[in-house]
């Protein structure tokens, strides 16, 4: 089975992101393919490298980055939602004249078309939201 996962909420405020993490891990363990994880609405906040959760708490952003790196996952952050919420990579920093960028490793900023394309290519869309 080929999955596209949609994450609609940011880390900590809602359980959506950790539920998505656990689902993706279980899907990979079962031998399925996770074609893309698409972060929309406040879900884009899962991709900032500046979070500093308490040491005894789950580091959600780093967990996504590690999962992506170990499993070659495509973590896509919606550009429109990212711009609204201040998630910036080097390209967006240059394009929009920002004085820095904050995207975490393993994430890439791209358009909403990536979600639609994911839904066309994948067998299943699973949405995690509020």
């Amino acid at each position, binding site marked *: *089975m080929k*999955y596209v996962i949609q994450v*609609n909420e940011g880390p900590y405020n809602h*359980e*959506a992101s950790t*539920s998505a993490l*656990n*689902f993706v*891990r*279980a*899907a990979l*363990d*079962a031998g*399925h393919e996770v074609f893309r994880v698409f972060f929309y609405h406040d879900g884009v906040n899962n991709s900032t490298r500046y979070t500093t959760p308490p040491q005894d708490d789950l580091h959600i952003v780093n967990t996504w980055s590690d999962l992506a790196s170990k499993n070659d996952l495509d973590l896509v952050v919606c550009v429109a939602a990212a711009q609204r919420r201040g998630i910036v990579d080097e390209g967006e920093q240059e394009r929009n004249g920002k004085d820095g960028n904050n995207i975490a490793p393993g994430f890439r900023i791209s358009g909403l078309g990536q979600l639609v394309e994911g839904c066309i290519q994948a067998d*299943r*869309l*699973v*949405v*995690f*939201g*509020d």
Partner: protein
Amino acid sequence: MPILHTVNKSPYERNSLDSAISHALKGSSVIMFEDGVYGAMKGTAHADKVSGAMKDVSFYVLGPDLKARGIDESKLIDGVKVVDYSGFVQLTVDNDKVSAWT
């Protein structure tokens, strides 16, 4: 084409469980997870709605979310099946698509 309906909100906070049930055709499944697991508890204002739908729809609840909230399996509505995340994944395989009721 059976659907897996996911419900992640408490029935006392949102109408998501009600909406999922009222749009679930015979042969489909509902999985309650995150705060949605409260909808799986017996002796509540919503329990009859779940039990009543069971003749047509299969109900599941995510074990890790139950445990997190201190809900013992003995408190669940009869007929609701507990699954873990691998079970959740399998439900998405066994059904044709997933519809999220947030």
